[in-house]
């Protein structure tokens, strides 16, 4: 079969109009020949004999009449062992290898293999000749880092097949044939360890999808306790510039209790990725004792890289995430920032002269965002094992105002909202998640009733604080003042967390449950405090000790003695227990989580 070809008819920014001879399909990849370079492009609209293509490169130098070759394939990524630890651009080009060939700068038209074809893997077959298989079935495994990487029947093969030959245990390269399968009609097909999958199509080779309920621990107290994320769930972090979105994602990428993290640096600063790039190979993952890099894939299409591949980059990332989910693993995808991805769509939509929606975003913005987050989920696979993809995306709203299309479209589909506030980041209250506006639909690792009680204190304390701005401390009752102090205590001692402190920076769920008891005691107790100065200094004292408690190594002597100090200080002043809290405690008992 001859491939379809075409010639360039027009160029407008990174969009090229092509006169096509033959058949083309939407999202098909083509290459524009410019001099001795071939520029990768994707068909994004077809009209009669003309196709509009977005070019994944700078378009300078393209001329009318330049030839175009279509590939017959949709934009796809290569899947197989060797993805972990890699640093890719939005089209899955390995950036370190590009640098080896091209030096300091990216080179137009240079595309390299995503997966190392020379590396050998220890293959162990899991089936035998004669077994019946279909797409997604595991035929063997190779060890990749700490995981058993499942070598699966390519996802795009349809129907039932029989294994004719299967390679014995041994060392193979990814492109070596390891299996031959045959269908009913006797057609045979050779399989190796890699295959391609189109990025814009979700991988859905699972038996059943479940409601996400099991917490995905981030080790950020405010998230795990108050605004939890579930494995297989979705969440977003909108916030104005400098509020701490990237820092929050960076610490999550380090500490989250998942098997694999896919970092999609989408249209943001290159310098920020460099930190991850250079530090992860040095940092050990406490769960495995190996480096963090061995559980990480970085997709890096930063702001000055071509906009069309920025659009593709989030799909590249989520496809790799889905692939590892098929191995029964828990995968976390962090995308920073989804607004840049949305803007890439907006640029293209403008060039296509589509009817613009709000703020010139395309009318289909909402459905595209929804179907992206829809690719998250916790699933049961054919072999009975479970896997999950959790998606967390930052949003960078214009002017920091959440009433804008991307934030609003995202809020409609995600399960948790961690809204960052300018006031909190200006006051250096990190993480700057707004405690009153944020929400989560997922269950907390800590009892919901206890958490709700705390949030109520926060809410009422905030009301007092607003009042106090008008009537002053003089005009506030002692009772209200104590309530205000309690809410401040909750905020500064528990919700705020020093990300850069070696101990406070990541707090296990076990520790969160433990220290939550003391927090709850403070919030629920009635104290013998005779005036406001007395109350202020009492809570200052509590806070100071609690902060030291937070930075003491878990179960160390320092930790225990701080705790004893806190308990003593609370007991000394306690006159009783708030009756609502008493009720909850009686019902919940001592089980916090």
């Amino acid at each position, binding site marked *: 079969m001859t491939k379809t070809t075409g010639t360039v008819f027009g160029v407008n920014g990174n969009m090229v109009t092509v006169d096509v001879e033959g058949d083309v399909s939407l999202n098909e990849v083509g290459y524009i020949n410019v001099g001795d370079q071939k520029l990768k492009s994707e068909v994004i609209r077809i009209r009669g004999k003309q196709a509009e293509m977005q070019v994944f490169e700078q378009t300078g130098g393209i001329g009318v009449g330049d030839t175009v070759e279509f590939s017959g394939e949709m934009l796809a990524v290569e899947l197989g062992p060797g993805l972990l630890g890699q640093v890719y651009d939005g089209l899955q080009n390995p950036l370190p290898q590009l640098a080896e060939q091209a030096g300091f700068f990216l080179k137009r038209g240079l595309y390299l293999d995503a997966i190392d074809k020379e590396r050998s893997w220890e293959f162990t077959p899991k089936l035998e000749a004669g077994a019946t298989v279909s797409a997604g079935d595991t035929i063997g495994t190779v060890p990749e880092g700490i995981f058993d990487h499942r070598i699966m029947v390519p996802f795009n093969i349809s129907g039932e097949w029989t294994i004719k030959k299967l390679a014995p245990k041994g060392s193979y390269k990814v492109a070596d044939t390891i299996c031959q399968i045959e269908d009913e009609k006797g057609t045979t097909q050779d399989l190796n360890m890699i295959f391609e999958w189109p990025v814009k199509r979700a991988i859905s080779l699972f038996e059943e999808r479940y409601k996400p309920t099991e917490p995905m621990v981030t080790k950020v107290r405010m998230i795990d306790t108050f605004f939890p994320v579930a494995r297989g769930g979705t969440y977003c972090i909108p916030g104005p510039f400098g509020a701490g979105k990237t820092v929050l994602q960076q610490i999550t990428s380090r500490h989250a209790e998942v098997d694999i993290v896919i970092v999609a640096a989408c*249209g943001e*600063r290159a310098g920020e990725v460099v930190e991850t790039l250079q530090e992860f190979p040095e940092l050990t993952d406490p769960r495995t004792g190996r480096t963090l890099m061995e559980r990480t894939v970085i997709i*890096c299409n930063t702001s000055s890289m071509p906009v069309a591949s920025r659009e593709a980059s989030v799909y590249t990332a989520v496809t790799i995430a889905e692939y590892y989910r098929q191995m029964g693993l828990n995968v976390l995808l962090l995308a920073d920032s989804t607004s840049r991805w949305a803007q890439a769509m907006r640029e293209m939509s403008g060039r296509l002269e589509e009817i613009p929606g709000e703020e010139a975003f395309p009318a289909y913005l909402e459905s595209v965002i929804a179907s992206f987050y829809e690719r998250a989920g916790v699933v049961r696979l054919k072999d009975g094992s479970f896997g999950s993809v959790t998606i967390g995306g930052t949003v960078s709203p214009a002017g920091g105002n959440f009433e804008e299309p991307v934030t609003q479209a995202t809020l409609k589909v995600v399960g948790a909202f961690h809204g960052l506030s300018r006031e909190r980041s200006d006051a250096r209250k990190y993480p700057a998640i707004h405690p009153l506006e944020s929400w989560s639909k997922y269950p907390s690792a800590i009892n919901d009733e206890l958490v709700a009680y705390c949030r109520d204190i926060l809410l009422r304390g905030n009301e007092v604080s607003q009042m106090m701005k008008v009537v002053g401390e003089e005009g506030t009752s002692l009772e209200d003042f104590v309530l205000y102090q309690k809410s401040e205590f909750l905020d500064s001692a528990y919700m705020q967390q020093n990300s850069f402190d070696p101990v406070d920076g990541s707090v296990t769920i076990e520790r969160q449950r433990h220290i939550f008891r003391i927090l709850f005691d403070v919030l629920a107790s009635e104290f013998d405090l005779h005036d406001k100065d007395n109350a202020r200094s009492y809570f200052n004292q509590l806070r100071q000790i609690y902060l030291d408690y937070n930075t003491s190594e878990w179960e160390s002597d320092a930790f225990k003695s701080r705790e004893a100090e806190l308990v003593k200080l609370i007991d000394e002043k306690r006159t009783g227990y708030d009756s609502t809290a008493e009720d909850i405690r009686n019902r919940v008992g001592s089980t916090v989580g």
Partner: protein
Amino acid sequence: MKKIYSRIEEIAGNVITVTAEDVRYSELALVTSGHGKSLAEVIRLRGNKVSLQVYSGGRGISTGDEVQFLGRPMQVSFSDNLLGRIFDGSGRPRDKGPTLEENLIEIGGPSVNPSKRIIPRNMIRTGIPMIDLFNTLVESQKLPIFSVSGEPYNELLSRIAMQAEVDLIILGGMGLKYDDFLFFRDTLEKGGAMDRTIFFVHTASDPVVECLMVPDISLAVAEKFALQGKRVLVLLTDMTNFADSLKEIAITMEQVPSNRGYPGDLYSQLAARYEKAVDFEGAGSITTLGVTTMPGDDVTHPVPDNTGYITEGQYYLRGGRIEPFGSLSRLKQMVNDTTRADHRGLMDGMIRLYANYKESVEKKSMGFRMSEWDQKLLRYGAFFEAKMMDLTVNIPLEEALDLGWEILAECFQSDETGLQSKLLDQFWPRKSTRDEQETA
């Protein structure tokens, strides 16, 4: 030599359209009109219809003017001969020196491979305590000054340029007032820095398209010098004018605006320029300081807003001072752990107390009673503003740190500062000799 076309079919704003063959995207052409010659760049191809953006503007161009395609994209000459010279936005001399045509390089080249970047590591000393102590500038950083027009941002920029220990200064002026241009030139001349400075200046009266070229041309030259091992400081003033030129072209091209008339790709356009800031392993670096004036003092205006999302912090200039709040150097933590042991602690502590001072000021203005603690804070705030924030203060970091301790000791007991005991033990100023004599 390429064919000359002598029939311009459409003229709209700064964009002309001709029918031509064998033209490439981004290629340059020479437009010859009754007013002289101007370069123009191909910005759209559709069949044999070619749209070009004319650098000197569309005004005065007639349908019968000549267009000759040059078969190459925009280039600039690169050599040491650039040093001390002054050019306009398309690289033509603005001084009396010769036109440079040797060793032409392309502008707007590809971006640096992220995997070749390194973590920034060198502080740039400016002698300004609000920068050195509180928001340290780091080599390879990109950082704008946010301010309303009328603030002394160009003074600040030239002062940093004079003081920074860099090998080369490139000034990219966009919509620069002629007086400001003279100010920069005179300051650099007086400081003896002219021979390591290159100017690319577009003034307020020059054609708008040339304004668009200034960042690219400045950064292309900077990049080449950096690759030769030079530490280059690029000053871009005022990037809001650059953004407004983008807006003007976008509107002429009938693009759908996204926000207050600005095109949807404003973010990408700004990022493409700011992201040129880099530290090359084994070679030199580019540090970019910009000026972004905020129309109506509104930081949510699309230009400062998009800029804030791109740059590595910002200096807020207000009332002639760099504001402690809103100002941020995102790279400061990369260097301030190795300057002096008290740097980080003092930085955080002093800002915290300054925030408390602001609260006391607010309370006072609402007529609430001032406690003893409030009184102390008011005193502290006044000292802080006079001795640290005043832009005429010019002292090295170490002196600024010492000064910080002095101010604290002047106003507070050591345990009121909230600073770690370890730091207090080491750095809290001992009583002055006079006090000791009195006690004795």
